[in-house]
C-alpha cells in the first residue's frame, strides 16, 4: 500500500495559508480542512501507519520561550512522525539572557536551514512578529493571553469526534477566561463552526467586552450546566495573575469546580474537557477527571494528530509556493 499517497487526498485542497497564527483569521472551510486532515492521520495511525515521510529532509524548529511540557512534546513528536528533523530551543540559558533580541534569535536559528517554526512566547503577537521577519512558515504554539490555535483545534476535534458535529452544540468554557489563550482560540473556532458558546467564571476573570464576540456570559455554573453538551474546564493560571481575583481556591472550587454533584445536574452524555495541566481539586475533582465523561487523555492523543495536520498543511503550502511537486 502506498501510504504516502493515502494522506494526499482532496481534503488538503484549498489550503493556501503560509502561517497558522490563530483561529481568528481562519475561515470555516480552513478549519474543516485541518480537522479532516487530522482525521486522515488518525485513521492511518489506527491501522498502524504512524511514521510518514512528507517532511523528510526538512527542519522544524520548536522555539519555546515559555515553559511547556505537553505542547512541546506533542509538536516534537508530530514533526518526527512526518519525518522532519527537529531543533528544540528553550529560552532559559540561551543568548536571550545575553541581550539578544527575540527576532534575532529566531533569525539565527532559521539560518540553519529551518523551514517551519513552532513558537510559544509569553507576549501576544510574537508569532505575528516572526511572520513579518522570517521566511519560514510559522505555527503559533501559544502567545501570551492571545491565542493557542492547536489547543483549540484539538479540543474541537475531540468534540466533533464524540458528537459527530459541532453545529448546534452548546460548549461552556469555565474558569479564567481573562488570562486564557485557549478560551480565545476556542471561541473563534467554535463560533465559526456553529456552536453556541458560554463563558462561565467569576466576574473578575471574564473580560467585560467578551460578549461582543458573540458568546453568552454566565457567572453561575449551576445555571448553565444542564443545557451544556460540553464543558471545557480552563486552568486557573496562577502564574499570570497579578493579584487576587477570587478570595480563595476553596471558594473557587465551591463555585466553579467540577465535581460529582455537578455532574449529576449535567446532561447524561456531557463531555468534560480540560486543556491541562489540570489542578486536581480546583477546577475538577479527581473522580470527574478520571471518570467516564472525561476525555482529557484523548485530547492529548488528538493533539498529536492536529499538530501533524497543521505541519503537513504548511508543508503543502510551502512546496506549492516554491513550485515543488507535492
Amino acid at each position, binding site marked *: 500500500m502506498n501510504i504516502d499517497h493515502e494522506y494526499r487526498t482532496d481534503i488538503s485542497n484549498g489550503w493556501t495559508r503560509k502561517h497558522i497564527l490563530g483561529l481568528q483569521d481562519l475561515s470555516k472551510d480552513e478549519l474543516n480542512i485541518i480537522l479532516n486532515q487530522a482525521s486522515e492521520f488518525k485513521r492511518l495511525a489506527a491501522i498502524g501507519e504512524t511514521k510518514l515521510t512528507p517532511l523528510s529532509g526538512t527542519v522544524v524548529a520548536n522555539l519555546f520561550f515559555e515553559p511547556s511540557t505537553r505542547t512541546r512534546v506533542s509538536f516534537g513528536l508530530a514533526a518526527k512522525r512526518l519525518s522532519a528533523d527537529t531543533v528544540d530551543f528553550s529560552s532559559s540559558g540561551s543568548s536571550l539572557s545575553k541581550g539578544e533580541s527575540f527576532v534575532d534569535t529566531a533569525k539565527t536559528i532559521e539560518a540553519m536551514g529551518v523551514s517551519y517554526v513552532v513558537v510559544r512566547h509569553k507576549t501576544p503577537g510574537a508569532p505575528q512578529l516572526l511572520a513579518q521577519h522570517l521566511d519560514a512558515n510559522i505555527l503559533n504554539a501559544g502567545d501570551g493571553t492571545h491565542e493557542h490555535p492547536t489547543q483549540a483545534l484539538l479540543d474541537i476535534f475531540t468534540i466533533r469526534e464524540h458528537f459527530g458535529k459541532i453545529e448546534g452544540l452548546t460548549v461552556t468554557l469555565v474558569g479564567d477566561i481573562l488570562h486564557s489563550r485557549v478560551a480565545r482560540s476556542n471561541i473563534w473556532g467554535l463560533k465559526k463552526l456553529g456552536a453556541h458558546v458560554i463563558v462561565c467564571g467569576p466576574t473578575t476573570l471574564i*473580560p467585560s467586552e467578551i460578549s461582543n464576540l458573540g458568546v453568552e456570559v454566565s457567572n453561575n455554573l449551576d445555571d448553565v450546566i444542564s443545557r451544556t453538551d460540553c464543558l471545557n474546564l480552563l486552568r486557573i493560571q496562577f502564574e499570570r495573575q497579578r493579584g487576587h481575583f477570587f478570595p480563595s481556591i476553596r471558594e473557587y472550587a465551591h463555585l466553579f469546580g467540577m465535581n460529582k454533584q455537578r455532574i449529576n445536574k449535567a446532561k447524561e452524555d456531557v463531555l468534560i474537557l480540560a486543556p491541562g495541566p489540570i489542578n486536581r481539586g480546583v477546577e475538577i475533582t479527581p473522580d470527574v477527571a478520571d471518570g467516564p465523561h472525561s476525555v482529557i487523555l484523548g485530547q492529548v492523543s488528538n493533539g498529536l494528530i492536529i499538530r501533524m495536520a497543521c505541519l503537513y498543511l504548511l508543508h503543502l503550502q510551502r512546496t506549492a509556493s516554491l513550485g515543488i511537486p507535492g
Partner: protein
Amino acid sequence: MKSILIKNGHIVDPSQNLDQQANLLIEDSKIKGLCDETTTADEVIDASGLIVSPGFIDIHVSLCEPGFEEDETIESGTAAALAGGVTSLGCMPNTSPVVDDRSSAEFILLQAARAANCHVFPLGAVTKNHEGKELAEIGQLVAGKAVGFTDADQPIENAEIMRCALQYTRMFDRPILNRAQVPELAEKGQMHEGFHSTVLGLKGIPAAAEEIMVNRDIALAELTRGRIHLMCISTQNSVSQIRRAKQKDIHVTADVTPHHLTLTDQMLETYDPHYKVLPPLRSQEHIDALIEGLKDGTIDAICSDHTPHASEKKTDEIIGADFGIIGLETLLPVCLQSLITPGHLTWSELIRKLTCGPAKILGLSKGTLAEGADADITLINPDIKYQLDPVSLKSSSQNTPFLGKELQGRAEIVLVSGEVRYRAEK
C-alpha cells in the same frame, strides 16, 4: 538694525484676533507690526499661499539629554522642533540625572544655546529623582529658569505630595504638570482596555485609571488654589470633569496630543509597538469627546508628547517595547488631518491651541505677533502633500506610526528671534 518683511501672507494670530491677508514687519528680532505694501526691509520673504502664524509652542517634549543620547539630543530634538514649526518648547525633566536641581536646568539651557535652534524652557521635577517621595528643590529650579514642574511619565501617586507641591508652587506662580494615571490600575497594561484588548490578549488600561486621578488633581487644585495642568488627556470623562472644574474657576488646564485625536486602539491589531503610547490610544467615542473639549475651550493646548526611542527599544515583542512616539515633526499635519480637514476647528482655533494656549499655561510671553514680541514665526504651507520619509526626519529616532504615510501641511519657513532658522526642502 536688521529688518525683515514677510509679504503677502495670510496672518493668523489668535492672541489679537487677526485673520487676514497682510504684510508683517520685523525689526531687530522683534515684531514691529503689520505694514502696507510701500514698506521696505533688508530682507523680504514672499509668503504667498502661506499662513503666517506665531511660532508654535510645545510644552511637552522629551529631549533625552543627558543620559539617553541614543534616543535624542538637545541639538537633534530642537532641530526636529524647528522642522515641525515649533519655536519654543518645554523640556521634560525625565533625563538621567533627573532635572531636580538648579545645575541640571542650567545645563539644558546651555546646550540649547549651543544648538541655537529653538527656545528651550526647562521643566523641573516635582519630586527628587521622580521618586514621588520628597519635593525637589523647586525654588532653586525656578532660579535656574524652570517654568513649571512635572514628574513627566511618572504620575504623582501620593496625594499628600501632590497637595504640598500645589501649595508650594503657588509661591512662584508655576504650574504642576501631571500625567494622570492611577498606577495600580495601569500596571502591566499595554493598551486601552476594551474590545480590542480582549481580542488581542493584551492587558488593558481602563479609562478609569486616568479619570480617578483627574478627579483627585482637580480636588487638590481646588483645595490648595494651586495650578494643575493635566497632560495628555485621553478620555471622555476626563474632559467632562475638567469642563466642570473650569466652570467653578478652579485653576486647571489640559492638553491633548495629535495622535490621541487621530488613532484608535484598533491600530494595535497588528501588534505594532509604534502604536504603543501612554496614555493608550482609546476608542472613537473618546476621540469625539476630546475634539468637543478642544472646540469649547476645555482643552487649552495641543502638545506632541515627543518621546524618542532608538529603534532597538521600539521593535521586537510589544510587551517589551517602550511606550511613546516622536511627534514634533508630525504635530501640524496630524492636527490638520484630524481637526482642520474634517471641519472641527478653523485655522485660527487650531493655531490658538498651538501658540497662545500653551504660552498661557507656562506663563511665557510668547505665542503672539503683537508689536514688541519676540519675532518667533512659523510660515505654514497648508496644501502641500508629501510622504513622511525617514531620511527627512531631524529627530535621532524614527518611532512614529506615521512613517511612510501621506501627510498634508508643513512648516515652510521658521523664524526664531527674527532669524530664519529653518526652510523646508523643496
